[in-house]
C-alpha cells in the first residue's frame, strides 16, 4: 500500500498541472445552454491534450495508463476548481468490451476526441428502476432493424450524434434475455429528440422517440439478447465516480466555496466552518475510496457490484456538500438564482439517475452482503 505517486505518476501530474495552469477555466457561463457548449469545448481541449481516455488502449486513441491515473486527473482538476472531464467512461468501455473490430475502430477514436458525442438510451416511461421492462423494440428485417419506441431521461441527447440504445429484439424470450444493444445515429429518419427542461433550467435531459427508424444490423453491439449483460457492465463503470468525472465536479464545488471563505467573500461562522470541514471529510473519504477501487483494477479485474458502494458514497457526499453550500451561501442563490441552485438540484438527482439510491442498496445487500432476494416474482 503506497499512496505516493510513482515517478511516472509524479511526472504525469506535473505535466498535467502545467497544462491546467495554461488552459483550464474555473468560471463557467451562467446560462445552461452556454454552459453546456462551454463544457463541450473544454472536453475537446482536454481530449486534444491527451487527457481523455487515459486508461484506454493506445490503439483506440487512449494512453494505455493504469486506472489510478484517472484519480490523478480528477484530483488535479477538482482541487484547482476546474470543470470535470467528460462523462464517457461507461459508454466507451461498453464499446471497447463488446464491440467488433470495425465498431471499435469507427467509434472509439472519435468518442475519445470528443468530436462525436453519445447518449445512453436506457430508461423508458414504464422502465425506470425496473430496467428489464424495456418495451422499445427493434425488429430484424433483412440487414437492418426497425426501431419503434420511446426513451426518457436520455442525458445529452440534444447534443449527441449517437445513441447507445437498449431495446427488445427477441420478444419471445424472458424479460432480461430479450434485450439487445444497438448503436443508433440520431440523425436517422424516424428519430426525434424533445428536451426536458429540468428544475434548474438545463436541457440536458430529453425524450427520444423512435418511429420506424431503420438501423443497419451491423450496428448491433454484441450478440442478439446480450443487451442486459452489456447494460449491467456499463452501469458498473457508470457507478464508479472516477469513470465519469463526478469526483472532480464535487471537488471543484468545495474548492470554490473554500476559496470564497478564505478570501472573506463569503462569511462563515463556527458552525458553518464545521459543516464545510464535514463536507471535506466526506469528499476525501470518497476520493480515497475511489482510489482503492481503481487500485483493485490494477490487476486487470473489472468493476463488480461493489461499484454501488462508490455510487452511494458519491451520492451522500454530493447531497451533503450541496446542503452545506446552500446553507453557507444563505440568501444569495435565492435572491439571485445562480450556479449553486443548479448544483443543488443536480445533487437531488444524484440519488435517482444511474440507478436510484434504493436500487444501489438492493445491489449492495444482495450481491455484496449476500442477503436473500425477497422480491415477489412478477
Amino acid at each position, binding site marked *: 500500500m503506497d499512496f505516493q505517486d510513482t515517478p511516472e505518476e509524479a511526472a504525469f501530474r506535473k505535466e498535467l498541472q502545467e497544462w491546467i495552469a495554461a488552459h483550464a477555466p474555473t468560471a463557467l457561463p451562467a446560462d445552461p445552454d452556454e454552459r453546456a457548449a462551454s463544457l463541450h469545448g473544454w472536453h475537446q481541449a482536454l481530449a486534444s491534450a491527451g487527457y481523455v481516455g487515459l486508461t484506454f488502449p493506445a490503439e483506440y486513441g487512449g494512453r494505455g495508463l493504469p486506472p489510478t491515473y484517472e484519480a490523478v486527473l480528477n484530483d488535479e482538476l477538482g482541487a484547482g476548481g476546474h470543470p470535470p472531464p467528460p462523462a464517457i467512461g461507461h459508454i466507451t468501455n461498453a464499446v471497447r468490451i463488446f464491440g467488433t473490430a470495425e465498431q471499435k475502430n469507427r467509434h472509439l477514436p472519435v468518442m475519445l476526441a470528443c468530436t462525436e458525442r453519445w447518449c445512453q438510451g436506457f430508461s423508458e416511461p414504464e422502465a425506470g428502476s425496473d430496467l428489464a421492462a424495456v418495451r422499445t423494440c427493434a425488429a430484424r428485417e433483412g440487414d437492418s432493424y426497425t426501431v419503434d419506441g420511446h426513451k426518457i431521461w436520455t442525458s445529452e441527447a440534444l447534443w449527441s450524434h449517437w445513441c447507445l440504445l437498449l431495446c427488445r429484439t427477441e420478444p419471445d424470450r424472458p424479460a432480461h434475455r430479450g434485450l439487445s444493444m444497438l448503436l443508433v445515429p440520431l440523425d436517422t429518419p424516424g428519430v426525434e429528440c424533445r428536451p426536458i427542461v429540468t428544475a434548474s433550467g438545463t436541457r440536458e435531459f430529453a425524450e427520444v422517440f423512435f418511429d420506424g427508424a431503420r438501423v443497419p444490423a451491423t450496428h448491433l453491439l454484441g450478440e442478439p439478447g446480450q443487451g442486459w449483460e452489456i447494460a449491467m457492465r456499463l452501469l458498473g463503470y457508470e457507478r464508479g465516480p472516477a469513470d465519469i468525472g463526478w469526483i472532480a465536479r464535487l471537488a471543484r464545488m468545495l474548492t470554490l466555496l473554500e476559496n470564497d471563505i478564505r478570501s472573506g467573500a463569503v462569511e462563515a461562522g463556527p458552525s458553518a*466552518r*464545521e459543516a464545510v470541514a464535514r463536507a471535506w471529510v466526506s469528499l476525501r*473519504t470518497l476520493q*480515497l475510496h475511489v482510489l482503492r477501487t481503481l487500485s483493485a483494477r490494477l490487476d486487470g479485474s473489472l468493476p463488480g457490484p461493489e461499484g454501488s458502494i462508490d455510487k452511494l458514497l458519491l451520492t451522500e457526499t454530493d447531497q451533503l456538500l450541496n446542503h452545506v453550500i446552500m446553507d453557507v451561501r444563505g440568501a444569495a442563490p435565492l435572491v439571485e438564482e445562480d450556479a449553486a441552485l443548479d448544483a443543488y438540484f443536480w445533487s437531488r438527482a444524484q440519488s435517482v439517475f444511474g440507478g436510484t439510491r434504493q436500487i444501489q442498496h438492493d445491489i*449492495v445487500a444482495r450481491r455484496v452482503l449476500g442477503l436473500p432476494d425477497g422480491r415477489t416474482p412478477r
Partner: protein
Amino acid sequence: MDARLTDEQRLLQQVAGEIAADASAGWTALAGAGFVGLHVQAGPGGAVAAALVAERFAAALTPMPYVGAGVWTPALLAAAGAGEAQAAVEEGRLRFAPVLRPDLSAPARDGEEGVAFDAEGADAGLVIASDGRLRAVALGEPARGADLTRTLRRVPADAPEQRFPLGRPLTARDRIRTEAVVLAVLAADLLGTAQRALDDAVAHIRERRQFGVPVGSFQAVQHLASHAAVLVEGARSAMRHAAWAATELPEDEALLAARQAKAACSTAARDVAETAVQLFGGIALTWEHPTHLRLRRILLSRAVLGDESAQYRAIADRRLAPAGGD
C-alpha cells in the same frame, strides 16, 4: 499510487487475527510477537502495521491495552529517545498508559487532574510536561468506565512522579507525529469494532426468520445493512490512507489525514453499531449479547483525542485559514 494491501500486510492481519482469537494470549505473547511498539520497529509504513493489528484486536474485543500501551506510549518513548524504557516496554516488562484530560480530548496538562487511557496492567501513566519532557506518574483508582474491554484510571493532580529515565523533551513536531499515528490507530480500532458488529448482524438477519422468511430478505432491513456496509468501506479507505500518511507525509499533512480518518471512522462506527443493534433487536442491548460491548468500545474510541466535531473544528482551522492556507 496503489491502495492495495501487500502480501506482507495481509499476513500480518492474519497473525493478528489468530492472536486476538486466542483467549490465553496475554501481553507477553503480544510483546513476543513484536506487536508492542510495532510501528516504531517496523520503520516506514509502521503505522499501517499497527493499524491493521489494532483493527483485528478491536474486532475481537481483545481486552488488551493495545492502542494505549502497545502504540501510543511506545511512540512517545521512541520520540523522546528513551531507549532503555522503550526496550523494556517492547519486551513487555514495563507498561505505560497515556494520561488524558478528563474530557479525553487531548493529552493531560502536567500537574492537572487526568484520566489514564488503556491502563490495564500499566506500571505508570505518561504525562507530557510543559517543557516537553515525559514524566511517569503513579496511577490512581480505576474509573467505572463504559467500555468494559479497556481500563481507565484516575490520575490526581498531585499524582506522585515515578522515577524512570525518559529521554529528552519532545518537540512540537514529535507531538504532532505521535498524534497522527495515534489518531490513525484509533480510527482502525473504530473500524474493526464496527466491521465485526456489522458482520454479526448480517449473519443474524440471514438466519432469523419472521413471517416465514429470513428477515434479511425484507428490503427495509437490507437497506439498513447496506447503509452500514457503505459506511464501513468508506471508513476503511480513509483509515488506511491515514495510517500510511502517519509516517510517510510531513507532520502537518499526516495530522490532517489522521483527523480526516478519525472523523470518518467516528461517525461511521457509531452509526454502524447502532444499526447492528437495530438489526439484532432487543437482545443486542442485553448481557446475553456482545453488541453493546462493541458500542461501548466505539463510544470511548470516538471520544479519545476528540470526536468528529472536534476533528471538524481542527480541520476547519487548518483548511480555512485566510489566504496562504491549504
